[in-house]
């Protein structure tokens, strides 16, 4: 009896133990995945641009604060307006050791070039922030407000005013086309350059009349008094109130809507991984980016670049991406930028 009893108890004990493990395994597995080799962080853009700066910054923060047990390797795959990078992601499904940072070319490149990929070939991880666009002119010109500049375009000859921007049929040109709806039929001459930094310098050198540079691309020239911001392409003003120049903070730049230019545009700075990965793997990266965002380095980076800090994950992020994809399709269609084939 005692033998039986003890046997029974042992079995029961084992069963309970097994059950306990069984129960604990599921939630543990959901959190317990972590990279087993180096994680590749793909940048579908060239060196020195906004996406490149952010990805390399994240790599720096992850390394500095030791947030990941494996190294993070950053690779630029800029070919074909980012198609190279996205096709590379598409070609390696179920690979949780690969993540990609996005800019608007996630939507625009397949639409403009007909390259076969879309965001549906990737798994959304998180929206890190939204990058802003600002209308800039050279500080030596007399355009004090966006309305001044708009009136000058209206009063000038067709194609007289030159807008410099990054790439062709991408975000900068989409904004330019949107502006042209307000110029009374006068077109702007859009001149594409290879990178955002070069665009800002072209404006300082007065080779173009205006740009829609991201804040981080033009901030040093603004500080030095070479460029003047006219308006911000967002629904509301920036939240950063610390002075950037002696007299102005990011929050002092009026929105374009306030200035009578009803144009809004922001660019996704989000992270995606390959298709077919598990929820646990996605969750690992969500947690990782939460840790990155909690650092003081990140907060300073956000403020320096006047980012719109919106963090989204899961279904909410997926819905946002879906809606933005449709928005870009409409904008590109209206501008006549869709690939013909």
């Amino acid at each position, binding site marked *: 009896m005692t033998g039986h009893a003890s046997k029974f108890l042992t079995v029961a004990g084992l069963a309970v133990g097994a059950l306990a493990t069984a129960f604990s395994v599921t939630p543990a597995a959901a959190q317990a995945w972590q990279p087993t080799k180096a994680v590749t962080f793909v940048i579908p853009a060239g*060196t020195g641009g906004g996406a490149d700066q952010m990805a390399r910054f994240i790599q720096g923060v992850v390394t500095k604060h030791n947030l990941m047990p494996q190294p993070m390797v950053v690779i630029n795959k800029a070919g074909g307006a980012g198609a190279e990078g996205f096709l590379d992601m598409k070609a390696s499904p179920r690979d949780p050791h690969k993540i990609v940072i996005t800019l608007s070319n996630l939507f625009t490149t397949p639409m403009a*070039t007909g390259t076969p990929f879309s965001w549906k070939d990737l798994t959304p991880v998180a929206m890190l922030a939204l990058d802003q666009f600002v209308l800039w002119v050279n500080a030596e010109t007399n355009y004090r407000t966006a309305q001044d500049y708009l009136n000058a375009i209206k009063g000038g000859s067709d194609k007289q005013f030159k807008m410099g921007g990054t*790439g062709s049929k991408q975000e900068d040109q989409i904004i330019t086309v949107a502006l042209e709806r307000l110029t009374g039929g006068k077109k702007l*001459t859009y001149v594409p350059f290879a990178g955002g930094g070069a665009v800002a310098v072209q404006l300082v050198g007065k080779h173009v009349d205006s740009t829609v540079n991201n804040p981080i691309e033009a901030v040093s020239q603004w500080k030095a*008094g070479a460029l003047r911001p006219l308006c911000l392409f967002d629904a509301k003003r920036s939240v950063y109130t610390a002075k950037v120049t002696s007299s102005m903070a990011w929050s002092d730049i009026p929105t374009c809507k306030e200035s009578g230019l009803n144009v809004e545009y922001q660019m996704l700075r989000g992270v995606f991984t390959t298709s077919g990965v598990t929820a646990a793997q996605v969750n690992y990266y969500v947690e990782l980016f939460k840790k990155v965002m909690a650092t003081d380095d990140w907060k300073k980076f956000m403020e320096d670049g006047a980012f719109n800090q919106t963090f989204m994950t899961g279904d909410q992020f997926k819905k946002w991406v879906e809606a933005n994809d449709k928005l870009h399709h409409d904008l590109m269609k209206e501008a006549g930028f869709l690939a013909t084939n």
Partner: protein
Amino acid sequence: MTRRCLSGWALHSFLGEYSVYQIRVAVQEPPRRIGRLERSPIKRLGGALEELASLLNGFYVVFSPFNFMLMIVGILLGVIIGVLPGLGGANGVAILLPLTFSMSPTSAIIMLSCIYWGALFGGAITSILFNIPGEPWSVATTFDGHPMAQQGKADEALTGAFTSSFVGAIVAVVMITFLAPLVAKFALKFGPAEFFAVQFLTFASFIGMGKGSAFKTLASMCLGFGLASVGLDTVTGQLRMTFGITDLLTGFKFLTAVIGLFGIGEILASMESGLAFSGSHAKLKLNAVIEAWKKLPRYWITFVRSCVVGCWMGVTPGGATPASFMSYGLAKRFSKNGERFGKGELEGVVAPETAAHAAGTSALLPMLTLGIPGSPTAAVLLGGLLIWGLQPGPLLFVEQKDFVWGLIASMYLGNLVGLMIVLTCVPLFAAILRIPFSIIAPVIMVICAVGAYTINNAMFDVWMMVGFGIVAYCFNKLSYPLPPFVLALVLGDMAESSFRQAMLLSQGSVTIFWSNGLVGSIMSLGLILLLWPVISWVLDKMRAAKAA
């Protein structure tokens, strides 16, 4: 350390007030103001003194044992990176960037910039010994460097290359030290039309390169233009000549082409001519360095010309690669020995190396003062600056004095230390050629393949490299010149974008190329160089007619 700094700072605070004012003025006010300040000799002297004081302070920063060690480590790593084709300075700096996050920004930038100097030195080694340019800017070095090695003069070529690199770099650093704000202003004058004018000048100065048939030169160049246009067209945003093949989206990468054309092509040629390196019979001379140095002073005019070309291309930012090609083309055109270029002329090594280093060094200036990188490596360094919380731009020289002058001081020292390290190794490098061909050839093949693969982590590039090797072999057999092909491949893309951007700005009028003195004079100079054979022919005729 503290006391040294203090003495530096004492001098600094003595002149500090004034200089901050001067730099602010230089950055913010229209150019007229600088001109007026510069014309006042006393004030100018004050400015120069202040820069010297800041530089001295920079030297104190660099001379801490830790920083000095980082410098040597950086140079050695850089030389290795420069030797391996495809790894390249940009990749090397990118890989090592995270290592530096625990250091102070000044220490970090010293180490990273030393890797950059090391890579610039290292690129010359494989170009001369094996005809494989480790870096794009070393391509022009192979034209005369490798023939020299084949004639058993590898040590002389290496010494010449390293010394010219050093001279070019030092001249550029001196320019950065004293003329930074002024030169930064000059870079702003460069719009698309100016860029195209410079690229046109490069092509024009190179047209006379082709030996033999002018049509073959032209055909070779056109083929290069054709390959350069594969991939995305930045002006229309459309894909061109990719035929739906995703591997071609990125276009033909310059380094893949160069490794194949030069490295693999050379191996194929050597195999045909008897499985041995010519030049392996050379005796090792320990005084080779001294011997080579005796010859260098007579090329002083080439040094001067190449420094000017290099500094100018680095600042604008045209980059080290066009600078080296342009300088080689000009040296060939204007040297007394021009005829013998391409057959192993020391002057043909001096010209591209001096210019490449002057450009590579001065490329850091637009990065620091304008926030635009002059080279891919500078672009990665720029990313580093942001992580360290430094905002590159016009105010960096005012807000981060210690950092900027530490960097500039490390440029002087880094290049000096680098020169000493590589010169001591010259006999060692030259001895590599004594290894039997059957051992070294497979090693070169492997290094080339790894190099081609690492550019983009793509196997496709390795096959492409082999393809380019075969192309080079056919070119040699049919005596088509390779240099115009390579030049068109590296510059074709940039020249096309600049031209079309300029055309957009002017709405289709070519008068934009003569719309101001700067662009007009570069363009006219280019046209004169392009038509020089015709002009000199006409001049000869006229002279003959006069004599008769």
